[in-house]
C-alpha cells in the first residue's frame, strides 16, 4: 500500500507491506539508518523516533499508523549547517557515548523530554530513560549530558 507522511521536514510517499514496522520503512526504504535496530521487540529503545513529538519504539509500530504524521529521526537533530543540536553536543562533551549504538534512541527520547519539560530533575530524566537500554555507559554520563543540556548542571 502507499503511505504518505512527513519525515524530518520532508514529505514522503512509500510503498509498504501491510504490517511493516515503521523502523523497517525508515531504514530499508528511506535509507535513514541512523535509527538502530537492537531487538525488534520493543524492549531496547534503540529504534526510538518521534511521532508528532512523542517518542515511540519504531520497531513495533506498524508503519500504516503514521500516515499523515510528522516523524523525526536522529538525522533531523543537527542544523542544516551541520551544527550539532545542544543535546548532541552535550553527549559529545560529557562522554555520554561509548559504542554509540543506543545513542540515537537516547537522543530522541531526551529531545522529546526536553521539549515538553525544559528543566527536568535527575529522577525525571532517569524515569524518562527507562525504556532505553544502554549496555556500555551505566547511564550516568547520559544523565549528565541531559542535565547539561538544561543548563542546570552549573
Amino acid at each position: 500500500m502507499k503511505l504518505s507522511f512527513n519525515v524530518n521536514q520532508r514529505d514522503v510517499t512509500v510503498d509498504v507491506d501491510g504490517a511493516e514496522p515503521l523502523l523497517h520503512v525508515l531504514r530499508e526504504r528511506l535509507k535513514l539508518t541512523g535509527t538502530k535496530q537492537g531487538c525488534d521487540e520493543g524492549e531496547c529503545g534503540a529504534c526510538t523516533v518521534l511521532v508528532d513529538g512523542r517518542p515511540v519504539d519504531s520497531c513495533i509500530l506498524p508503519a500504516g499508523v503514521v500516515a499523515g504524521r510528522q516523524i523525526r529521526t536522529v538525522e533531523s537533530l543537527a542544523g542544516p549547517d551541520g551544527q550539532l543540536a545542544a543535546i548532541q553536543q552535550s553527549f559529545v562533551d560529557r562522554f555520554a557515548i561509548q559504542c554509540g549504538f543506543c545513542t540515537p534512541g537516547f537522543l530522541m527520547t531526551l529531545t522529546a523530554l526536553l521539549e515538553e519539560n525544559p528543566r527536568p530533575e535527575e529522577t525525571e530524566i532517569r524515569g524518562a530513560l527507562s525504556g532505553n537500554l544502554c549496555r556500555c555507559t551505566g547511564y550516568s554520563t547520559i544523565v549528565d549530558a541531559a542535565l547539561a543540556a538544561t543548563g542546570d548542571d552549573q
Partner: protein
Amino acid sequence: MTPSVGRSVPRPDADPKVRGTAVYGVDFEIAGTMFASLVRSPVAAGRVVGLDTTAAAAMPGVRAVITPDQAPAHRSGLGLSDQPLFASPYISYEGEPLAGVVANTLENARQAARAVLVDIEEVPAIADVGAALADGARFIHTDWASFTPVPGLPDWRRYGNVCGELISDPGGVDEAFELADLVIEDRFEAGRQYQAYLEPKSASAVYESGRYTIHVSHQYPFNVRDRTARALGVRPSDIRVVGHHIGGGFGARLDVSLEPYAGLFARLIGAPVKLVNDRVEDMLSCNSRESAVIKVRSGVTRDGRIVAREYLCDMDSGAYATDTVFLISIPMFVAGSVYQVGPTRVVARAVYTNTAPSGAFRGVSGTYLYFALERHTDNLARAIGMDRRDFRMRNLMTDGQSMLNGQVLSDAGILETAFDAVEEMAPWASLGVGPNRGVGIAATVWLTNPAPGQVTLKLNEDGTLGVITAATENGSGAVAMGVRQIAADELGVDPSDVILTMPDTDGQGFDAGSQGSRTTHIVGRAVREAGADLRRQIVEAGAQLLEESTEDIEITDGMVRVKGRPHRRLSLADLAKGAMFRRGPLAATGSYATPIPKYDPESATGMLFPTFPTPTYHVHVAEVEVDPHTGQVTVLRYLVAQEVGRAINPQGILGQIQGGVAQGIGHALYETLEVGADGRYRQRSLEAYRMPIAPDVPRVEAALLEHPDEAGPYGAKGTAEPPIVPVAAAIANAIADATGGSINRVPITPEDVLEALDGAQDQIRGEEE
C-alpha cells in the same frame, strides 16, 4: 602544545555516533548482497534424522538452501577442535545450526528458514553441570577422545563430559587444615549472563579470486580470520577481515559466530551474503558468561589468619569447549592473590552440557569467582568475630608475595592503598547504618591481557599523523582515546590531527583484539616503539632539509627546529613534503607483547592460562538498602578505588568504571539465563532478560590510583575490564549484611533477599530460645 596524555579529550567517533552516520557492522552491505538465515535446532539434544528443504527452496526470493553435506565436515574450535559448522547428525544445544537459507531479502531468508522441515529424534538434555558429572551420565560427545587441540596447543586432561581440568595441589594442604582453629566451608552458584550488546551479531562476506573478505563489527578481526580459516579448512591468509563500528561486545565478539557461515555461503552461491541475528537467536546462541558452582573451604586461626584453603569450581562450558578450558586457570589466581593464604588446593573443571557454548564476558569468570571468595571471606571474619574490613587488612597481600602459580606480585601493596582510598571517600563505619541497610567490601587483583599488537605510524604530507592498526574500538575508548592521545604526544600534535584507521587484516599487522583491557597498554606501547623510530626518521630528514647535523635537530610542538635557533624550523607538513621525494615517505612500525612473567609451570596441571601479567588492584564498596516487604534491593552508594597505572584519559576510565559497575549490578541482582530441564533457556527475549535501566544504577564514586607501570605507555595499565570484577562480591556482601542472612548465589533475586531476612529472623529466634 600541552601533552594530551592525562587529559580528558573527547572522542572523535562521538560525532558520527550522535549524528547517526556511523556505519556499524549490521548497517554495512556489500553491493549486490544476498541475505542468509540459519535453521537452528529447536531442541537441546537429539539426532537429525531428516532434513526436507523442498518447501523452503520454493519460497519467494530463495536462492539456495545450504545443507550440511555442502559444508566441511571437520570440527574446529578456539582451543579444542570439537565444534562442527552444522549439527549433523548430533544436536548438542538449542540454537545449534542445522542448515542455512540464502534469499534476496533478510525477511525472505528468515521465512524460508522456518520452512525447512527437520525431523529430530530428541533425547533428554543434560541441562547442567551436576547432570553432566553424575555417575553414568550420557556423554554429550561420544567421540570426545578423538578431539584434538588446535594446532600449537599441547593436549590436556579431558574425560567424558569434562573437557578441561586444572589441578593445583602443592602438598601439605590437608596438614595445614589441621592447624586451623576453625574450618569454614561454603558453596556458591552463579547464573549465566548474556553480554546483551545493543547491536545484534551480523556478518557480510564475499568470495573473490579464491579469497574470502568478511565485513563485521568484531573485537578481534585476526581471530575471525584464524577461526574462519580453521572452520573452512583454508589458510588464514585466504581470509581478509574488515572491521566496522562495533555496537558493544564485552567479550561476545572475540570468537567467531556468523562469519564462517557468511564465507561458506558466499562461496557456494557465488554472490555476497549477509547474515544478521534476530535478538532471540542472538540470545539463544550467544557465548554468554558460563554458569558455575564453587565450593570454598578455609581454615582460619582465632587471631585471624587464613592457614589453609581448598577452592573447587565447575564451569558450564555448554556444548563445546570454547573459552572455559582457558578460564579454569583463573580460580588459581582468585583463590590466592588478594589475601595471603596457607597451602591451597585448587581444582577447576570445564564441563560439557546441552546448552549454548559459553564464552568470554568482561571479567571472564572473575566476577563470580571473586563473589564466592569475598562472600567466603566475610563468613571467615564473622566466624572468628572480627570486623570484615579488619580481617581483610590483616591478610592482605603485600609487595613481593607470590600467587599460587609462583608469580611474584611486586606491587601488591597497592591493595592497601586502595583500601585506604575508599576509606577516605566514605569511612567503612559510616556506611550501611540503619534498618535494612548494609555495606559490603570486595577487593580484587586483575590482569592486563599480554597478547601482541602492532602499529604503523605515518607522517602524512599535511602534517597529520596516521595510526594504522587492527586494534578495535569496541566503544571503550581504548583506541579513540588511549591510542590516539598516546600517538598525538609522540610528535606533539593535536589529537584532532591523529587519523585512526578501521581494522583490515590485509592491511595491518596482527592485533589480539579488544580483550582483557590490553589495547591502551599493548597498542599504546607499540605506538611508542613506532614513535621513537618515526622521530628518528624525522630528525634525519630535518637535518637533511635544514642542512644541519642530526644532533642539532629537535621536534617540539609539532615543529622540527634547529636547537638554539628557533626561527630555523619546518612544520611537520613541510618536512613530510620535503622528505617525500628525497628519501621517501616517513613511516615506522612498532610491535609489542608483554613478556610472560616468571611462574612455576609445576604449580598446576591443565593450566592453559598460566599467568596474570601486568596486574592491577581494586577495592569496591557497596551500600544497599533492602525492602523487607518486596525484597527489592536499592544500591545507595557505590565506591571504587581502581589502580590504573597512569590515566591516559581520566573521563574515559571513569566511563568504563560506571559502565562496568552497571553490568556488575545486572550480574548481581537481575541477569540470568536459566536453563530448564529440557536444556532450553527460560529467558528468551530482552523483556524476560532483565537488565539494569537508568533508575537502577547509582552514580559511582571513583578514585583512580596512579602507579605508573614501567612497561606501559606513560605507565598505563589495563583499565576497562576490571571494574565489573568485584561488583557481585561487594553487592552480595552488602545484602548479606543488610539481611543478616546468607547469600550464596547470583543473581540475588527479591525472593533470595526475603529468604535471607527470614533465615536471619529464625536464627535470632533460635538464639533467644
